[in-house]
């Protein structure tokens, strides 16, 4: 679908927020789903870029991306009014908790945006939301103001320049020590962080969901590029269609 850029801004160094409008089934989008966005219009860039959805309104959606290569650089150079060739919404999003469930959201770096969409959607279902977000430094922090309105927010930075000096697990441990308990844990971020989160909660009675990231080619399940082994390594799961959100006992992290 051809959509148009409605707004674009650099919200942190090399991190861009782009709002896209135009005819699209916005009301069907589930938190955790993603888009495949074409880069350029010619044959130079053959692969679309998989990008998560950070927020949705009735007539637009917002994505947040970091410039990591030529494709994301091209996206960051769009202007208001430019068209974007967007495929989506794709994949399976986060399963919702039951009413008034106690929820913990854990995000790291560029894993944070889809969790904001989730956090907003959860407002209708529960008031018991704790949020732990980890970033490298204060400079890299994104969406902290927005998240602070969604629940009890704890920020960690690797260098201590904002919030707790440490990682997200340190923050989770300190929340537990202060008596907080959860029924659901939703997380998205670097693979190492997701692995540590899963390990941390492995002996506890919580439902956990992770959103995974991987190089993708088709985004629709055809190419088997974005495979992830199941927990017992007996089969592979395609992140684009069986995920990107998985219950953490479905996949090996």
């Amino acid at each position: 679908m051809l959509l148009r850029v409605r707004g674009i801004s650099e919200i942190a160094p090399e991190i861009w927020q782009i709002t896209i409008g135009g005819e699209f089934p916005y009301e069907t989008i589930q938190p955790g789903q993603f888009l495949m966005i074409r880069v350029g219009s010619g044959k130079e860039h053959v692969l679309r870029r998989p990008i998560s959805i950070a927020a949705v309104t009735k007539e637009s959606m917002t994505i947040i991306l970091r410039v990591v290569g030529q494709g994301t650089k091209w996206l960051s150079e769009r202007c208001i009014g430019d068209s974007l060739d967007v495929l989506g919404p794709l994949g399976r999003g986060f399963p919702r908790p039951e009413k008034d469930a106690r929820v913990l959201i854990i995000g790291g770096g560029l894993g944070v945006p889809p969790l904001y969409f989730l956090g907003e959607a959860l407002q209708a279902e529960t008031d018991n939301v704790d949020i732990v977000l980890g970033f490298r430094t204060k400079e890299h922090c994104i969406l902290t103001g927005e998240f602070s309105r969604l629940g009890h927010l704890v920020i960690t930075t690797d260098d201590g320049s904002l919030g707790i000096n440490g990682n997200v697990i340190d923050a989770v441990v300190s929340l537990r020590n202060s008596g907080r308990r959860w029924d659901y844990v939703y997380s998205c971020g670097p693979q190492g962080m997701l692995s540590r989160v899963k390990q941390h909660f492995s002996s506890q009675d919580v439902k956990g969901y992770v959103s995974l990231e991987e190089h993708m080619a088709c985004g629709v399940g055809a190419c088997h590029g974005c495979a992830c082994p199941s927990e017992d390594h007996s089969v592979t799961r395609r992140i684009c269609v069986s995920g990107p959100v998985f219950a953490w006992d479905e996949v090996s992290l």
Partner: protein
Amino acid sequence: MSYPDLSIEIAGLHLRNPVIPASGCFGFGREYARFYPLNQLGAVAVKATTLKPRMGNPTPRVTEVSGGMLNAIGLANPGVDYVVRYELPWLANQDVPIIVNVAGETEPEYVEVTKKICASGLASAIELNVSCPNVAAGGITFGVEPEVLQDLVAAVREVCTIPLFVKLSPNVTDIRKIALAAQAGGADGLTLINTLIGMQIDIYRRRPVLANRTGGLSGPAIKPVAVRMVYEAAQVVDIPIIGMGGIYSGEDAVELIMAGASAVMVGTANFTNPFACPQIICELEDFMRKQGIRNLEEIRGCIR
């Protein structure tokens, strides 16, 4: 003005047009049926199928390069029994001929998979994959030695009850010798080219981008190689050729047909644009109409 006729006869198959999504780029068809009815296509070539299920290689398995991509999927597939039971029956109901890509590590494995596919009665043709560059044992070893290839094709030919195509690797010194060997083994047709072996390095992390280190290069970057190799093969064999390699438009398809291909396969373009195949069919028809070409035989192999 009359409409041009896009239909073709190839190795005993009648196809409504010459555009076929390439193996590995179209799953088992279901994934693209959400975008358009598959009966618009000439045929569908499904993902490589092996005797046992295969998990494939570690990730990253795909990466973009200028004008193309590298893949090292590693023949991930659920195995022939699952394919015959759960994938082909659905696709067989879509009113489009099915070409099943068969891969293996040993001659008996190729033979066994071919038997099972033929016995299912669901496939229109077999495409023998002797050119996967991404698995250490098997595949490619059959595709680079003419004598070995001829023996394998002959063994599969003996049990294959439907048209047999052999998919050739471009990673050889002389494509003509390989093409002739496949023909001598009894192939009903050739498909070429598979991907060229490439590599990309992440210079900041100082390591290859793909977990497999190397991967198959596909996309617009390889089209001139495909045109040359289809042309060279067409000069020496009498069996029909399905050409592929970087086809993104009707004009690209015409180029391969003029080089000697009877039909074309479209791979990477499906990823860039899920509607690539129907668009290529429209553009091909448009080209024929504007050029006053009534059927594809008029231009096939017109480059001598």
